[in-house]
């Protein structure tokens, strides 16, 4: 589906619709902004998934992005939202570049396990670091844009709009990346990496690059989420958080850069409603949904739409 069609058009329409409809969807703004944050992390995850790699440790970069934003705001007094977003992304990208040297050698379950181990190391560190609030975490000061506060009760729209624009740009860039030669190596590596090597491409470098992209996007998502919630805690690095991202990626599918955001929105809707109406069975609803998707739509919910549009 990549390279075939209307991805960019759909993204532009979606952005315009969201920005225009935003002021009238007051109740939904928080949830939608959260979905954008989650969608960004999952966008990175699908870059890896297309290569056949599942990271059970994206929570690491998500948490690093969020804690960078929190620390810059709390300890240095930096409030500019754009600077904070860049900071969170950069911190995650640097860490991903370093760890990528190791992880690029791993595949399949070992890749999943090592990435899990790294995120649990961060979790273990944060839980015992009292300067960063231990298990409670700490509050993130409200960010500003052009000198004005952009989040808080009553005016969530500016942050929401920022989230949409950031997600839009990230989706466009990722879409462009997936169409490059390096991006198109992904399915080839997944199918047979030895053949890719014979063709003259370095699998190791390709995976390293993809890992850094995924880490940076997770950092960006974490940074946005930290500003949205206004609070951060070590749970962000726990394995269940990473599991949630994998869940959303499977739910949405890897066929398009739109799928992660669609998946994230659907996930947040399921979670909000299931949690509201039956707090003790919402995980069961999620688990069942995941099983159904794995069995009936192995390429994710996105494939259902793509199929329909091809036929129609």
């Amino acid at each position, binding site marked *: 589906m990549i390279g075939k069609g209307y991805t960019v058009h759909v993204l532009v329409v979606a952005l315009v619709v969201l920005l225009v409809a935003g002021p009238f969807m007051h109740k939904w703004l928080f949830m939608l902004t959260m979905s954008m944050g989650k969608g960004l992390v999952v966008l990175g995850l699908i870059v890896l998934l297309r290569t056949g790699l*599942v990271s059970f440790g994206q929570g690491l970069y998500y948490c690093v992005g969020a804690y960078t934003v929190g620390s810059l705001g709390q300890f240095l007094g930096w409030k500019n939202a754009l600077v904070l977003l860049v900071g969170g992304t950069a911190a995650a990208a640097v860490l991903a570049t370093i760890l990528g040297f190791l992880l690029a050698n791993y595949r399949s379950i*070992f890749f999943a*396990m090592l990435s899990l*181990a790294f995120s649990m*190391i961060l979790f273990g560190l944060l839980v*015992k670091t009292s300067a960063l609030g231990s298990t409670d975490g700490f509050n993130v000061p409200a960010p500003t844009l052009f000198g004005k506060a952009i989040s808080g009760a009553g005016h969530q729209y500016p942050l929401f709009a920022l989230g949409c624009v950031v997600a839009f740009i990230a989706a466009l860039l990722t879409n462009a990346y997936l169409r490059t030669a390096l991006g198109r190596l992904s399915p080839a590596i997944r199918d047979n990496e*030895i053949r890719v090597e014979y063709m003259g491409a370095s699998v190791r470098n390709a995976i390293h690059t993809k890992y850094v992209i995924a880490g940076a996007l997770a950092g960006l998502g974490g940074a946005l989420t930290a500003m949205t919630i206004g609070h951060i805690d070590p749970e962000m690095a726990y*394995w269940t958080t990473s599991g949630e991202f994998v869940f959303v990626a499977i739910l949405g599918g890897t066929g398009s850069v739109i799928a992660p955001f669609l998946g994230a929105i659907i996930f947040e809707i399921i979670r909000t409603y299931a949690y509201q109406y039956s707090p003790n069975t919402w995980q069961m609803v999620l688990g069942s949904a995941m*099983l159904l998707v794995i069995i009936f739509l192995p390429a994710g919910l996105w494939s259902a739409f793509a199929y329909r549009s091809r036929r129609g």
Partner: protein
Amino acid sequence: MTELLSVVVDAVIYSSWLFIIALGLTLIYGVMKILNMAHGSFYALGAYAAASLVGYWLGHGYPPLASYGMLVLAAILVGLITGPLVERGLLRFMYGKDEIILLLVTYALFLILEDSIKIIWGVNPYFISEPYGLLGVWDVAGLSYPFYNIILIAVSVLAGVGVAVVLQYTRPGKLLLAVIHDREVSMAMGINVNRFYMVTFTVGTMLAAIGGALTAPTVSVVPGMGVGVIVLAFAVVVIGGLGSLQGAALGALIVGLVRSAAVHYLPQVELFSIYVVMALVLIFRPKGLFAAAEVRKI
């Protein structure tokens, strides 16, 4: 000296507990190539079933000593019911798929089981501490440990030796080794592979449930108690080498020692240290300490 001794004793107790759980995980992976994320849920199921059975037993004034039998019975019941149900009802449709897909399927199963537990037992904690103190304490160089821990260690050794003996010296064990080695050829030779899968999964489930049942008297049984156990058990089997029996034993010992040393000497690094060891082993021995060499397929 006393401190060192207590580090070692704590480590042995903790390792025994971990080994029982990791043994089930590594067995299931070794035979079926499924890294079972729902293993922690089986552990929690065992704990809850034990809490109910022991609670019922003691509540009716039956002899308290027999409550140990109830702990084991709870685990066996959980294994016999959940194991075949999950394997026949869900996993058998997934064989032949990618290991990662299977990991995700068991992750979905984990989500479902977590809530099933809440539906069956509610969200309030259960306490059944009687069996823990019943046997009195045991003095080691001036430190006293509840005698209950000896049972835990004994069960752990028994489970490990039992699985090893069955695999090495009995006919079904040798057949199972054949299945592990080559599933298709075993099938062609007339081995009922599906039955082996079901039995293995049931035994694995039972081991996790025994781990949970034996833990139930020492903690409060609460929702979500299996969530942390999964990653610990992962750490153990990954350190030892996935699918390796000796590996699980060594992994459990290493994790137990690291944790207990950290708890005694540097409590800040307790959780963190276990995963550092896991990462280090993966970095220097990517397939774990006891992994067999694998043929690269082109």
